[in-house]
């Protein structure tokens, strides 16, 4: 049972006003298995306090909006996911609806036993090592919304990709819908890619519902010598002008020795979208290729807060972040590469490009480096600008309309990210 005091504090501060918060947690279909996580999350939330713009993590986030909205915990209505599973993922799909893992809508028949999905509660109950790691992870997490997620989770899913597996793409849909307005949902997903495995994981987060706060936590471990292509896609919004929703995602990735991970993140915009990424290169010789594309429009706000931490020798990180800003949208990127004392031979490249398609938009960029080791080669770059007038003229002089010419240039700009998606239907979805 979460302590009464902690529940009250959470209710007072987090914007969650369910009178029956304790009852909400107690109503978990898996009983009290996740209570230690709820307690740890609540205590962590109390330690971290409410976010405000003086926290470096929230410099560019309108924390007033975050804090002023009051949310209630989601009801129990669990609709059908209506998923369009890409053809490349036939027989390998997992459904998470309003934070709950739904085996009845999931299909792993095409995985040949190489991918196993289980309820988070079952894994916590039967795997003491995992349960201990979960609590440690919650206690050390510096993200306040990750703490809120931990405080409120009733459910979740753990996906194991077995050792030495070579799998076809896995499709994971995390969707919100069919619940009361003003609700908060807390999807939680753990993926463990076994040693020497080779996998492609596609996570589609469809949380753009009016007046819904989705607070997701995705934790991924890439085993030694494993290779993972990870795509995280947030499709176009379905909410009307003037409606509000918040979607916050915490992505935590740990890479082990000689592993390789490529990541492509693409978001089409949301009234308030925040991605908080912590990517740890903990094994010698691992490498990450990270690419993200954000395209907010209207009055959307998109924020990326990312930390790439090199803790082991001879690791490499290659980071490309591209933002396209339309209308009066704003985008902010706060990305840091941290090279720890023992991480000699580290190589890191970081590039942030902002393309402004409107005079009313705003782009804020903070590409940081924190280097505690002298044997490194690190660089970062950032640009901010509009479409090149000479390139526009070139296209216009060949008969393209201005709109089409801008579109061609924009496609070229985003192509650096979208071309890295190796699953054709997903690439088309993002490009469109």
């Amino acid at each position, binding site marked *: 049972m979460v302590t009464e005091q902690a529940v009250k504090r959470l209710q007072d501060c987090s914007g969650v006003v369910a009178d029956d918060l304790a009852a909400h947690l107690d109503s978990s279909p898996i009983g009290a298995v996740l209570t230690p996580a709820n307690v740890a999350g609540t205590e962590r939330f109390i330690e971290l306090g409410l976010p405000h713009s003086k926290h470096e993590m929230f410099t560019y986030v309108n924390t007033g909006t975050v804090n002023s909205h009051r949310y209630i915990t989601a009801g129990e209505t669990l609709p059908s996911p209506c998923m369009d599973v890409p053809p490349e993922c036939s027989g390998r799909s997992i459904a998470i609806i309003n934070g709950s893992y739904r085996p009845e809508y999931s299909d792993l028949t095409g995985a040949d036993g190489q991918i196993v999905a289980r309820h988070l509660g079952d894994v916590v109950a039967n795997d003491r090592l995992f349960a201990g790691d979960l609590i440690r992870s919650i206690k050390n997490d510096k993200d306040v919304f990750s703490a809120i997620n931990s405080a409120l989770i009733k459910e979740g899913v753990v996906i194991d990709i077995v050792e030495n597996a070579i799998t076809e793409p896995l499709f994971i849909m995390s969707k919100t819908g069919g619940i009361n307005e003003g609700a908060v949902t807390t999807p939680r997903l753990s993926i463990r890619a076994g040693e020497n495995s080779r996998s492609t994981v596609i996570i589609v987060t469809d949380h753009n519902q009016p007046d819904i706060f989705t607070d997701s936590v995705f934790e991924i471990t890439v085993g030694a010598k494993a290779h993972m292509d990870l795509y995280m896609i947030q499709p176009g919004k379905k909410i009307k002008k003037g409606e509000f929703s918040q979607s916050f995602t915490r992505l935590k990735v740990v890479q082990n020795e000689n592993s390789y991970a490529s990541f492509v993140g693409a978001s089409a915009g949301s009234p308030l979208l925040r991605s908080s990424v912590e990517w740890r290169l903990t094994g010698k010789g691992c490498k990450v290729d990270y690419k993200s594309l954000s395209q907010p429009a209207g009055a959307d706000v998109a924020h990326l807060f990312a930390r790439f931490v090199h803790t082991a020798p001879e690791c490499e990180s290659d980071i490309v972040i591209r933002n396209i800003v339309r209308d009066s949208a704003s985008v902010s990127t706060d990305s840091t590469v941290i090279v720890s004392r023992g991480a000699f031979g580290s190589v890191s490249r970081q590039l942030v490009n902002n393309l*402004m398609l409107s005079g009313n938009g705003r782009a804020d960029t903070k*590409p940081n480096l924190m*280097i505690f080791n002298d044997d490194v080669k690190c660089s970062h*770059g950032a640009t901010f600008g*509009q479409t090149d007038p000479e390139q526009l003229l070139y296209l216009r002089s060949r008969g393209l309309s201005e709109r089409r010419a801008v579109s061609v240039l924009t496609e070229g700009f985003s192509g650096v990210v979208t071309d890295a998606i190796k699953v054709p239907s997903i690439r088309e979805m993002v490009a469109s």
Partner: protein
Amino acid sequence: MTDLDQVVARKEYKHGFTTDIDTETLEKGLSEDTVRKISAIKNEPEWLLKFRLKAFRMWKKMSPPVWANVKFPPVDFQDMSYYSAPRKKPTRKSLDEVDPEILETFERLGIPIEEQKRLSNVAVDAVFDSVSVATTHKKKLMEAGVIFLSFSEAVKEFPELIEKYLGTVVPPGDNFYAALNSAVFSDGSFVYIPPDTVSPMELSTYFRINTEESGQFERTLIVAAERSYVSYIEGCTAPQFDSNQLHAAIVELVALDDAEIKYSTVQNWYPGDPETGKGGIFNFVVKRGKCQGKNSKISWTQVETGSAITWKYPGCILKGDNSSGEFYSVALTTGHQQADTGTKMIHIGKNTKSVIITKGISADSASNTYRGRVFISPSATGARNYTQCDSMLVGDSCSAHTFPYIEGATEFAQLEHEASTSKISDDQLFYFRQRGIDAEEAVSAIVSGFCKDVFVQLPMEFSVEAQKLLAMKLEDSVG
């Protein structure tokens, strides 16, 4: 053997001596009464006392900033004296009236006021603890219409100019240390270049903290009127004490239409004991220029080698259309030094341009942070910025950090930022060693090349001194 050669030979901090002179020092502590006393000692007009008191009341409500990437024990603002001055009569008609001990001090520091007065083409204002002790070349400058006075004298002789510009670039409530300085500033320099005038010589101020338990809070105000030009040089040293001294200065620059100000600094405050980190200056300085007029230009060049803690962001507010700002910086930290330094370029006017070139070198157990902000406001159409900040690490216990803030709120602007962090490669060292050059000299030459983009911006004599200073500082850092 020149003075600089001797310095290089000696290795230790050459400015660590103290001068035994009779000083007038206010008792420790800071209250409204202290502010009134400082104002009374300086016989200031009522409006300036009001300015100070307003700043003090703001300061009382503020807390010290904690966001900088530096760690140091909290400063007890009640445990220091806010005014210390050589006990000599305040007005001097010639250098003959200056305490010979002070003149000797400046000679030892390599600031030959006497000699420069006669021979060189640099006008010097020497600030000793809290007050300006000597300003040279006044007459020649006055003939050209250039006002170069200590702040106290300027308040008496040109109160209307001071009242018009004081606090217009760095308002008293700007931040904690700006409020502190505005409340207790003791002296400093004032420069006014009239319209259509190029200063006939470079102007220079030399700052010296001499007393152990006093802070230094000088204030510099430079106004360049329409179509004028001035180059201003600043140097700083302090004696070697086990305790920390606080230096919280403000520099305000105002450039009107088509005017240009070039401000160069070689900062070599006592950095503390290189082995233990004990002592050293806390250098918390607010420097800001405002390009108020169209086509105006402000250029900051700094070589930061001293201070235990440096917290300093010289910046430009580019308000006038077509105005431009430049920032060139070399920051070297060795021993246990910590520096969090950079710049702010605030683009407001149309077609404004800024360039930022910084080189950070970190050795031993030191930490070096670049923190810079480029902001393009919605009105700054056609704005352009180029930033390059490179860091070099010498040794495996040091650290280098880069925190750029690039904020754009208009479609029609272009910003480019690039940065790199690396060490001196074995190949580079091998190339030098192969030619019979030892490791220390090789590192010195490589660092000198690394910083070349900044050194070329310094006046010639300063450039040579800065390079030698860097070489001296890096001695014993090469393992």
